[in-house]
């Protein structure tokens, strides 16, 4: 219990003294997670919408495949990205391995199936509701997709937060492709893993507390957004 108590007191000191190393790690974590989330949304939402309203051969197979990709093991993704970005790999010439860009790539691959699959389910339900109305008004597919994305905004926002939660708490892939290099690719999760292995529990605990706070905040935010949507009468 002494170890825990000591670790907690040190971690709170680190947090409230605005430790520069801690801030750097937090900044990089947020930057990598938000950037990969942005790319995932740009690709995932249109993909989800296309699958939700599209009727083409193998559509059900692609949806099932995308659903199964939600459970992709991060270390496998990390390994594949590593092989592609390593010196001997096809994209080795880009020199991206052990950079934040490589971490963004790995996280994007992990989040796209979450954004695409969850948005597909939400938009598919909306399509069932609106289909006849839009067909009757001869609404173009692009206009329908924009309407679906707008009308499902409250539900889709929770999908975005789910994607962010996955990105910010991911460790397996980013440690392989980022290398956990101090002042370059060290993020919250990789730092926790490293500091724990070194026995430096105070920094690991400080980061753990922040990670838990981020996770809790996201969940409360999801509940609040849903509540706002219901109160406003748009859900």
């Amino acid at each position: 219990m002494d170890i825990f108590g000591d670790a907690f007191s040190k971690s709170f000191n680190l947090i409230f003294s605005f430790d520069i190393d801690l801030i750097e790690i937090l900044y990089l974590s947020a930057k990598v997670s938000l950037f990969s989330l942005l790319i995932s949304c740009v690709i995932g939402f249109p993909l989800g919408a296309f699958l939700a309203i599209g009727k083409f051969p193998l559509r059900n197979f692609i949806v099932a495949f995308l659903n199964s990709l939600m459970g992709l093991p991060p270390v496998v993704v990390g390994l594949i990205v590593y092989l592609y970005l390593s010196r001997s790999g096809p994209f080795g010439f880009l020199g991206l391995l052990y950079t934040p860009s490589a971490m963004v790539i790995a996280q994007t691959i992990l989040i796209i199936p979450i954004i695409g699959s969850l948005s597909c389910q939400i938009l598919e339900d909306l399509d069932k509701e609106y289909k006849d109305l839009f067909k009757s008004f001869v609404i173009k597919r692009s206009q329908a997709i924009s309407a679906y994305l707008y009308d499902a905004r409250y539900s889709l926002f929770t999908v975005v937060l789910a994607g962010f939660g996955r990105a910010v708490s991911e460790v397996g892939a980013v440690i392989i492709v980022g290398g956990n290099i101090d002042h370059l690719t060290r993020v919250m999760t990789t730092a926790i893993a490293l500091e724990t292995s070194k026995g430096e529990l105070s920094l690991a605990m400080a980061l753990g507390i922040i990670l838990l706070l981020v996770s809790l905040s996201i969940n409360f935010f999801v509940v609040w957004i849903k509540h706002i949507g219901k109160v406003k009468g748009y859900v």
Partner: protein
Amino acid sequence: MFKQENIIEITDLNLVKHSDNILKKINVQIKSNGITFIIGPNGAGKTQLVRSLNGLEKINGSIKFNNEELSKKLILRQSFVFQQPIILKRSVLENLIFFSKCRKIKNHIKKSKELLKLVKLEDFLNKPALTLSGGQKQRLALARALTTNPQFIFLDEPTAHLDPLSSNIIEKTLLKISKNGTKVIFISHDINQVRRLAEDVIFMHKGKILEFNNVKRFFKSQKSSYTKSFIEGKIII
């Protein structure tokens, strides 16, 4: 007032869904400019017939509007009001604006507000449409159907389960647009409503049209015993 010609010609119309022969060789020519009612017991094929007219069903046979075969171009001149109003998850005004914007209608905001005034929803412009009552939602659906100035409008039991006020507003609006040249095809189970509004009446049973006549003649004498029983409120099997 100038009235445009509104002729609907249905020839050998068949509709099969899930192996069920829902519409069986329908042949009818609707020439009147007033409101045409389609009545009949549940499962008669009324909804499927108007859905076919609006291009919502894959049919066999021919449907012509003013001698022109049903096409996307023609559907652009039609509107449909569904029995269960389909409401976009946005404000009342935005429910109209989305469709008028898609059709690039000029002065769409002003026109949308006028239409909402017509159905007595002018006080709810910025209210989320999902929070409206059932009757208000149906009036909104009617106003929305009118945003594109349709030449033909199809209504599938729009006043079923509505309060007298909402029914009255819908009926008055339909009479007004009908007088202005829009052809109205209206499905109803309310015989009194048919007497009040109809120019002519189609009676359907088991996927077939058993009777099509001017409203006065329709109620005066019926060719089919089914029609007679339906009007008298008897159970039809």
